[in-house]
């Protein structure tokens, strides 16, 4: 044993490990959708207040990510995709993850309330509670519908952004919520179809494990068919515009085609081309969400510039 191994502390994390605890990739999606929710709202905010609101929403999302990693360290250690996370790899102690998550949650909610209003702060607090407690602690290990209900947590950010600007809830913000809410199941079930051994090993009741892959393919199709009219419905509200309508029409048509292709395949066909269709559908689902919210942003820009 060298001297170095004696002083080596298992919990001596670098700064990056704490950043990783906040799930920066999930955070980027939260920042983007919250920004769109705030930007398309009919009420203008001071740029500094708007920036702060997005920042505090992002911190709140990161806090719930840290709480999730604290609770799920045992499953994360088993799954290949997540075994390198700070807590299962031993770089950050579980207690530290819990403390960071709780402290940042309180900070984010209080600061969002002070910067904007109590409706936005209340929605953020509920989102953190929903993701950390309802999804992570309760539903994820209990029901194969975990993805469906857990998706609600990821769907709240545009609503929070909208509430930060307007101080309320409306058809527009509920439809933006519904878009992400209905998009999440097909997105994650496509992932589960080609990352299957991971969830099996961890004992998380994914639909692929509990009800079979045939039924999962059918579920993807049903949710995609329900998603399309919701997405097109946004075009009819005050935040919709020609750009959004064109983008939504094209993307939803392609998304439904992809879901039908997934539904018509069986496992032998999927194994034969190494899940090419499922992987393609998953990648496209990311573009799908970004493009819908990007189009809302473009239409908002056109409206405020007077072009519409």
């Amino acid at each position, binding site marked *: 044993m060298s001297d170095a191994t004696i002083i*080596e502390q298992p919990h*001596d994390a670098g*700064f990056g490990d704490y950043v990783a605890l906040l799930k920066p990739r999930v955070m980027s999606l939260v920042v983007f959708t919250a920004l769109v929710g705030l930007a398309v709202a009919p009420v203008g905010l001071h740029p500094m207040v708007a920036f702060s609101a997005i920042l505090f929403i992002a911190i709140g999302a990161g806090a719930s990510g840290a709480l999730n990693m604290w609770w799920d360290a045992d499953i994360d250690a088993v799954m290949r995709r997540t075994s390198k996370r700070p807590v299962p790899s031993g770089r950050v102690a579980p207690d530290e993850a819990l403390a960071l998550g709780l402290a940042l949650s309180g900070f984010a909610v209080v600061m969002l309330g002070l910067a904007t209003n109590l409706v936005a702060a209340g929605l953020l607090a509920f989102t953190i509670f929903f993701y950390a407690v309802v999804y992570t602690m309760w539903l994820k290990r209990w029901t194969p519908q975990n993805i469906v209900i857990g998706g609600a947590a990821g769907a709240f950010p545009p609503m929070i952004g909208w509430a930060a600007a307007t101080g309320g809830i409306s058809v527009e913000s509920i439809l933006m919520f519904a878009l992400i809410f209905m998009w999440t199941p097909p997105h994650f079930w496509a992932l589960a179809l080609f990352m299957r051994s991971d969830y099996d090993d961890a004992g998380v009741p994914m639909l692929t494990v509990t009800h079979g892959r045939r039924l999962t393919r059918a579920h993807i199709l049903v949710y995609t068919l329900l998603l399309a009219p919701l997405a097109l419905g946004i075009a009819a509200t005050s935040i919709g515009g020609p750009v959004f309508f064109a983008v939504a029409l094209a993307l939803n048509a392609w998304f439904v085609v992809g879901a039908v292709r997934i539904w018509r395949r069986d496992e032998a066909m999927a194994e034969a081309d190494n899940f090419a269709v499922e992987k393609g559908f998953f990648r496209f689902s990311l573009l799908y969400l970004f493009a819908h919210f990007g189009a809302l942003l473009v239409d908002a820009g056109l409206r405020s510039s007077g072009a519409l």
Partner: protein
Amino acid sequence: MAIRATHELHKRRLSRNVGVAGLLVAMIAVFFGLTVAKVSTTGAVEGFDHVVRPSLLEVSE
């Protein structure tokens, strides 16, 4: 004589310390910016301290 050997551990600690320092500075900047934004959008503030405030006087016709 001071110990000069740097272990990988020290690098990780340094990254943490620099990171926390950066966060504190950023937080101060955000709070200050937010304060300026809030105060400047609240409308004119009456600067009558320890003197008669005309707006508080009863209207006498």
